[in-house]
């Protein structure tokens, strides 16, 4: 008998429990439907999440103008004259993160300037015809080329120079006797080949 009573109580409790579960399920169902309808309304108002990415980058190139210089004089008694060449243009494209800059530097990577002479390199401001952006400023005094990189143009941000033969930064090489009072006697007749490397540096935010 006891066991029958116990069974009835158990059934009641179980029934209660199932009802509670059903109620819970019912509420969940209603809740989910409400959420679903909310989501439906969102379809009409929300846009796609489009990511626009601008990677920082830089490119450098020259117009491959041949540069050949000769130290000569045709008048007896005179020193060989300084000579210059402005055929070379350097072109760049640059994108930088905000507030950062690049520089164009130059150095001699192969060979060396003949003894008793010095080779300087100066840049003009970038040509304006086909360029745009923050093109930087050439250093005021031409650099004396050596095996160590030196700044030619500073303050370059996001910009482009144009791609034409005479677009970009016009470079002037000037070659002449170096301190002739002490070094002129060191000059030796010969042909010297050197390689100059132009580098556009990583932006200074790196």
């Amino acid at each position: 008998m006891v066991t029958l009573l116990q069974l009835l109580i158990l059934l009641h409790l179980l029934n209660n429990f199932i009802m509670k579960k059903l109620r819970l399920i019912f509420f969940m169902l209603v809740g989910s439907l409400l959420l679903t309808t909310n989501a439906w309304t969102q379809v009409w108002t929300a846009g796609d999440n489009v990511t626009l990415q601008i990677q920082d980058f830089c490119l450098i190139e020259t117009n491959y103008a041949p540069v050949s210089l000769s130290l000569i004089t045709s008048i007896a008694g005179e020193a060989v004259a300084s000579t210059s060449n402005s055929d070379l243009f350097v072109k760049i494209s640059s994108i930088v993160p905000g507030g950062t800059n690049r520089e164009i530097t130059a150095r001699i990577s192969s060979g060396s300037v003949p003894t008793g002479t010095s080779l300087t390199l100066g840049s003009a401001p970038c040509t304006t015809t086909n360029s745009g952006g923050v093109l930087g400023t050439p250093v005021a005094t031409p650099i004396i080329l050596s095996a160590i990189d030196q700044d030619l143009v500073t303050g370059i941000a996001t910009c482009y120079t144009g791609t034409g033969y005479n677009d970009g930064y016009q470079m002037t090489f000037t070659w002449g006797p170096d301190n002739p009072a002490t070094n002129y006697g060191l000059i030796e007749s010969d042909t010297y080949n050197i390689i100059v490397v132009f580098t556009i540096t990583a932006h200074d935010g790196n």
Partner: protein
Amino acid sequence: MFVFKKIVLLISLVVLFFSFSTIVPAQNNNKAEMSITLKIPAIALIDFVVDGSQTITYSYSYSTPNQVEQIITPTTSDNTWLNYSSIVIDDLTNYITVHISSGSLPADVSLNVLIGNDVGAGDGIIGTSIGQIILSTFPQNIITNIGSCYTGRGIYKGHQLTYTWENPDSYNYSLNYENGNAIAVTYTITSTE
């Protein structure tokens, strides 16, 4: 088991992130090389400059800039300055010779020239003067061991030349000049090559 799945998912996400990064690389070509040719030709140029107070005829040919000729009279004294420019090849030097290139002197007449030292108006390895010589029709060295240098251009630059005559009265300059037999000396700068 659940934790293991999480880790697999995480690794997959990381790999996917990096693979996207390499698909869109920063495009960089940050160096441009160029070759430059620097030429220093050998140079050997010589010329006179004469103090204007005394007329001395001389010639200079641009086709042979390493030679210059001067007509000498008994009144030619110390008003001539020898200028030169020189660029030499490694281990070589230039030198200057002089000879009587035109006309002839009577047997009892001799003509001397004193080549002064460089006055220091230029730079570099200026040659060494031999001092005084008796001019002849054979070239004689007068300035040697010229390296890469220049004397400067003009009077009071380079080496002063001083001519002296022995027994000049025997030499009738005017007659010889009219006959085209004036005495001329030629200075030549040459490489030891």
